[in-house]
């Protein structure tokens, strides 16, 4: 399951807003942080607002803030706003026309897809906040290892 650029941008944005739902974040801040144009980001944020995940705040210091449910909203919920349901391999070929090779490869690709979807469906934004916290924590000093020349 390869995510489109807009989907990744939506996930980055939602996670930035969800870090503190009481805080408004300017779209320009997100655009600069992830190296995208504000115009490009605006389309993504507008879709998230339409879905009720974020809301725009007007005026000085305006921007967007998270209004979804952190413990209910999953990565998959955000992904499905931007991605068509995936169909493994077999591009443009009807099942009847597909060769055994295509069908066998499709079976493997769809296995990978199912695992990816189950993973995205099981991770809520609350869980992601925890993972982000772990990534942000100072890394532990690496364990001392002894190496011996062969």
């Amino acid at each position, binding site marked *: 399951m390869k995510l489109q650029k807009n989907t990744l941008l939506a996930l980055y944005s939602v996670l930035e807003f969800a870090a503190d739902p009481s805080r408004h974040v300017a779209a320009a801040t997100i655009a600069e942080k992830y190296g995208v144009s504000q115009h490009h980001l605006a389309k993504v944020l507008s879709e998230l607002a339409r879905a009720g995940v974020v809301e725009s705040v007007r005026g000085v210091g305006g921007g967007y803030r998270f209004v979804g449910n952190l*413990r209910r909203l*999953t990565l998959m919920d955000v992904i499905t706003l931007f991605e068509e349901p995936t169909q493994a391999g077999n591009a443009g070929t009807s099942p009847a026309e597909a060769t055994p090779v295509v069908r066998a490869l499709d079976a493997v690709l769809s296995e990978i897809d*199912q695992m990816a979807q189950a993973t995205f*469906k*099981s991770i*809520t934004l609350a*869980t992601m906040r925890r993972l982000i916290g772990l990534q942000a924590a100072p890394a532990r000093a690496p364990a001392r290892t002894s190496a011996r020349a062969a």
Partner: protein
Amino acid sequence: MRPVRRGDLDQVIALDATVTGLEKQNYWRSVYRRYGAGQRKQSHFLVAVAGRRIVGFLIGEVRDWEFGSPPCGWVFAIDVSPQMRQAGIGTQLLQAVCTLFRREGVRKVRTMLSSDNTLILSFFRSQGMMAGSLIPLEMDLP
């Protein structure tokens, strides 16, 4: 949180039936014989109690060298009454069994569940569990 008692079994069976839609009397009596009330070392059948009601349960055990893995704790059943969810009961059950596992010398805990069981998958994810080094495989027998 406490170890299960024989008198809890009917409530455990009823709770499981509420969640799964199947009443499995024989299965649960057999599970109780194997894991209940300190029957086996390093096996734990815990219940969460509110007043006199059983509102959740968890079963786990330390398994040695299964699938070639060093001893680790396995959680293979957990359920919380639907009316009592989102109150931290599952978290307390998992923490209780992890404390027991730590005392028994293991430093890893595992579980396995259906990929479409989003609710319980989300719960374990929220507790810090992630995909591990084992990949489950299966096939239909002709």
